[in-house]
């Protein structure tokens, strides 16, 4: 420290420049990767969205033609509806369930780590395998779930074939994979200072009130993080939908009820080689995700509480 103070201005500048060069050298892998794998593709995707391109003949400029076509494409709206459905109906219940499990585990329970392991296991199963397993569980005739429902006198739906039930099937399966969120919530809960609860106990606050006044605000940064990550994952919902559609040997499932935005985009790009059209869809997705993230961050000031101790 003392050495820096003795240096003259030129020395400081030279030192700063050296620090800058070393810093950039260390971070260069990511910076170069950012230009190749993120910045260039995003910009190029905007350019391609203004063209017609099938990989074989050079891109043909069509201006906003692709976007105009999009707004008249029923499948585009359908895929958007399917994606919003699974996002709105799925994300919040999955988070609430994961949080509930974490709260139960956080209280002193015998065998906490065993439960945690059990809850976490399903998240290790590759999506193709877990979707396959759930296709079997949800099989209308021989599946375990409908057999269970039959046992208690309920006629189970034709989960994978009835277009009204395909998306609820996926959401049901989604509960099975909430272990990661539970584990992360559990870590956040264990960081909440115990003295808050002790003080609340003395004041006679009910458990319910303690949750809303202490627990929920304390873990709100984690909730914000999870919410954003899950929204983005949900907008990109792909593999599970594609595998479930196999039950009816199609790409979009029964009546295209499993044609999610990413699946339609994939189909346009790699089945029909409409690279321009797919790029327009990609750009719409990019803009929607950015707007969602912005809205969540802007409103988060109202419900996310950052403790002063970190």
């Amino acid at each position, binding site marked *: 420290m003392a050495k820096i103070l003795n240096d003259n201005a030129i020395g400081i500048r030279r030192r700063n420049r050296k620090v800058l060069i070393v810093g950039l050298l260390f971070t260069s892998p990511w910076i170069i990767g950012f230009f190749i794998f993120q910045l260039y593709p995003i910009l190029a995707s905007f350019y391609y969205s203004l063209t017609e391109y099938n990989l074989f003949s050079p891109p043909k400029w069509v201006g906003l033609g692709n976007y105009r076509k999009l707004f008249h494409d029923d499948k585009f709206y359908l895929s958007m509806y399917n994606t919003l459905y699974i996002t709105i109906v799925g994300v919040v219940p999955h988070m609430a369930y994961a949080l509930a499990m974490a709260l139960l585990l956080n209280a002193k329970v015998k065998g906490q780590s065993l439960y945690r392991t059990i809850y976490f296991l*399903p998240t*290790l199963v590759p999506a*193709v395998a877990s979707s396959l*397993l759930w296709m079997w569980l949800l099989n209308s005739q021989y599946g375990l779930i409908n057999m269970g429902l039959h046992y208690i006198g309920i006629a189970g739906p034709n989960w994978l074939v009835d277009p009204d039930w395909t998306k609820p099937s996926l959401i049901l399966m989604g509960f099975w994979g909430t272990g990661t969120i539970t584990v*992360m919530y559990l870590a956040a809960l264990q960081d909440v200072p115990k003295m808050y609860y002790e003080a609340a106990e003395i004041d006679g606050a009910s458990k319910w009130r303690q949750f809303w006044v202490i627990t929920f605000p304390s873990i709100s940064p984690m909730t914000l993080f999870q919410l954003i990550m899950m929204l983005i994952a949900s907008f990109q919902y792909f593999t599970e939908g594609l595998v479930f559609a196999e039950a009816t040997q199609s790409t979009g499932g029964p009546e295209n009820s499993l044609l999610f935005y990413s699946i339609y985009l994939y189909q346009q790009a790699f089945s029909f080689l409409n690279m321009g059209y797919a790029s327009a869809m990609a750009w719409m997705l990019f803009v929607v995700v950015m707007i969602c993230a912005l809205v969540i961050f802007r409103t988060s000031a109202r419900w996310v509480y950052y403790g002063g101790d970190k």
Partner: protein
Amino acid sequence: MSGQSTVTGASSAQGAAGRRGMKPVAKSVLKHAILCLAGIFFLGPFAYLLLTSVKSIDDIFAIPFVWWPKKLYFANYSNAVHAIPFLRYTLNTLFVSLMCVLGELIAAPLTAYGLARIPFKGRNVVFMVMMGTIMLPAQSTMVPLYILYNKMNMVNTYWPLILPAFFGAAYYIFLLRQFFMGIPWEITESAKIDGASEFRIYTRMILPLSIPALFTVGLLVFLSSWKDYQLPLIYLNDPNKWTLSVGLKAFIGEHNVEWGMLMAAASLFTIPIIILYFFVQKVFIQGITLTGSK
């Protein structure tokens, strides 16, 4: 892990429960009942997966329902292994996953060190942009990247699956940055005064201290690469180059009702990572929670 700190919490909770008239024992029983129910929900499908994988067709479609197969039918496994080039797909998947781990473990710690311990001008900008890219949907860059790889004749090779790892992914860089920031500055300060270069400090001091964190990142990369479906689907056309995900998906289409064999294939795909998980569970959970904190 929760040990000492929760003891006081529990006793005061019991006091509160007592005041409200619910017996602590009853409360604990209720809690375990819910946890067990959830446990069944999480474990049940696994059990059913394994159980179905050793059932013959007759047992699978038997009415009334047969819980335990009359005779364990392991032929499903050998049928599955012979119906698809299982060994080949496993080796392909292993190759891709290990290369991704290698790439990520070269690039991510370097970048993370720069962001954590070199106070260069513009560092915060780099960090903010990097965190922003976590939110970037992969689909929005997919098409131009495909066109790019197509121009470079890399479609139907493993390059598109592996190459990005060698430039570091924001998520893992962030995780390692958090870890590097937690290493006391005093440790490296004296080496710096002695004239050691940043690179020397990085390789000789920081990396050896970070082996658990590097291990976690390596595992996370391995898992995500092992499970990935979309990239191999897009880039690998030649069935000989397929990974397990793509191979299994194609297998579903061809063997629609052979549930025993399908479940055997799904088990073979899943069991290795479950075994891996049990070996490294502690480090793994630590890593997951490290990612989430703040």
